[in-house]
């Protein structure tokens, strides 16, 4: 299996050279970063080139790296999981959007039609704009929703809640009344935690 993945890494370097980042193998999958400028062209070649033939786009999702421990760099990325039925291998392609304030990437709808809904979802939840998308509407959130809920600075309980107002006899939105709370805090342990050799 790993010989096959190394072959894929080698082919990626041969075909794209400097246009893609260094391919890395983690947990049985090859991952490669692509600069936003070359994103569409690289994706098209990954599908059409018989050396790769990634016929299937399995998944495309947004990610917000702003609170990732020890990370500094561009905030938003669109991560695609490609699958080739011919070669039976997978590839993860990461494209970072340059502008953190207004993240824009090219749309791959023309390369794989299935990207339509995935990109709508990434736009809805992360606010990543896909240029050239035929119908970039919100997908999962409510009609008239404001904000992008999966961004790390969006609170888990949101900003508004919905209730029935008996006086106005209709459903209204109002600011959330629940107090945010955290039962188990998020902890990242130092490198050698629990390995012994410390003060204990």
């Amino acid at each position: 299996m790993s010989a096959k993945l190394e072959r894929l890494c080698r082919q990626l370097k041969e075909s794209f050279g400097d246009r893609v980042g260094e391919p890395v193998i983690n947990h049985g999958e090859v991952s490669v970063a692509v600069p936003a400028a070359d994103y569409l062209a690289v994706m098209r070649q990954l599908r059409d080139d018989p050396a790769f033939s990634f016929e299937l786009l399995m998944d495309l999702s947004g990610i917000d790296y702003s609170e990732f421990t020890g990370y500094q760099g561009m905030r938003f990325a669109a991560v695609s999981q490609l699958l080739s039925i011919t070669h039976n291998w997978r590839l993860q392609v990461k494209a970072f959007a340059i502008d953190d304030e207004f993240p824009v990437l090219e749309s791959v709808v023309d390369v794989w039609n299935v990207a339509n809904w995935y990109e709508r979802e990434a736009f809805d939840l992360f606010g990543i704009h896909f240029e050239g998308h035929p119908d970039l509407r919100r997908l999962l959130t409510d009609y008239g929703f404001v904000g992008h809920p999966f961004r790390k600075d969006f609170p888990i309980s949101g900003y508004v809640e919905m209730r029935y107002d008996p006086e106005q006899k209709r459903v209204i939105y109002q600011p959330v009344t629940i107090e945010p709370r955290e039962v188990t805090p998020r902890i990242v342990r130092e490198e050698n935690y629990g390995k012994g050799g410390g003060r204990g």
Partner: protein
Amino acid sequence: MADIKNYTLNFGPQHPAAHGVLRLVLELDGEVVVRADPHIGLLHRGTEKLAETRTWLQTLPYLDRLDYTSMIPSEHAYCLAVERLLGVEVPIRAQYIRVMFDEIARIKNHLLNIGTHALDIGAMTMVLYTFREREDLFDALEATCGIRMHQAYYRPGGVYRDLPDQMPKYKENKFKNAQTVKELNEARNGSLLDFLEDFTNRFPVYLSEYHTLLTDNRIWKQRTVGIGVVSPERALQLGFSGAMLRGSGIEWDLRKKQPYEVYDRMDFDIPVGVNGDTYDRYLVRMEEMAQANRIIRQCIDWLRKNPGPVITDDHKVAPPSREKMKGSMEELIHHFKLFSEGMHVPAGEAYAAIEHPKGEMAVWAVSDGANKPYRIKLHTAGIPHLAATDEMCRGHMLADATAVIGTIDLVLGDVDR
């Protein structure tokens, strides 16, 4: 001459054939569908966001709530992703148990799909029979982990506990006399494996009954043959997977091509369709049930002969046994830390895909070394299939929209997450 205009029709979100809360905006020209625009998200619970605020173990039960007709395979994908990040080995017996329950879920899922699909397009009887068989499988799950639907039975590192030695039995009451209870309990006198073996013996007979009811049924064929045809090229473009992809004639099954757990030791075949229409997908699902039955039998045989541990003994990942926990300080600390702070998963990312009954279900887990996931992306099979409804419905009659929704095996919990 009168001016004839297209008109739009709202299908759902409260329509019984919409399989949940799907709102389908149909643009009709007379009775012909010109455009179908599914509006989803009415069941969006933000599972991925919730996962970011829960520990790795607390996230697991949310996975059951995704596809609430076949719960266990979703847990499986999540456990695989976490195990890959942690690098823990799963005991071989747990792998067999997982494969067995995945296949039980496959039968359960396809029974529901075929039953309700038939119900939607006019064959009322099917659903009564398929729910009868589902009941047996639910009983098996209840005996294993105490819960009929949302099991939370798979854990990172194995499964929660070993299979039970006995099945719960029916008791006499004012509705059931001694004779009825005796008949009902006949299959339940042995262990869970005996009960399941009895089921696998009965199931091929049931399957042939379904074939008698539907396969050559003229009305069923009129409603399904040539409806929602998807060519292999389009199936790839539309990102299909599972029975939808195989129905279009592409031989692709992760259990064979990228085997996980012990699927490489199993003997089974992959059914493939020819025409890519609703009827072919129905036949693929029927045959998949027969194959799943074969796999369950092989698992039962192996599980009978090979006792052993079912969860890893790495107590940073899985809790120690109650007995040890009560007797040893070290184990008590492990237990406490695991259920309060939770396990720490090394930084990295893993994409774990499995062959869910509906198609490829995958969990992309990103960790930055904390006790909570940094991001969990759930790829469920339903999304690309539902996204293709527009293309599959175009040019068909309004009544065929129901057939198309039935054939994509739609569960909104799965699509909306």
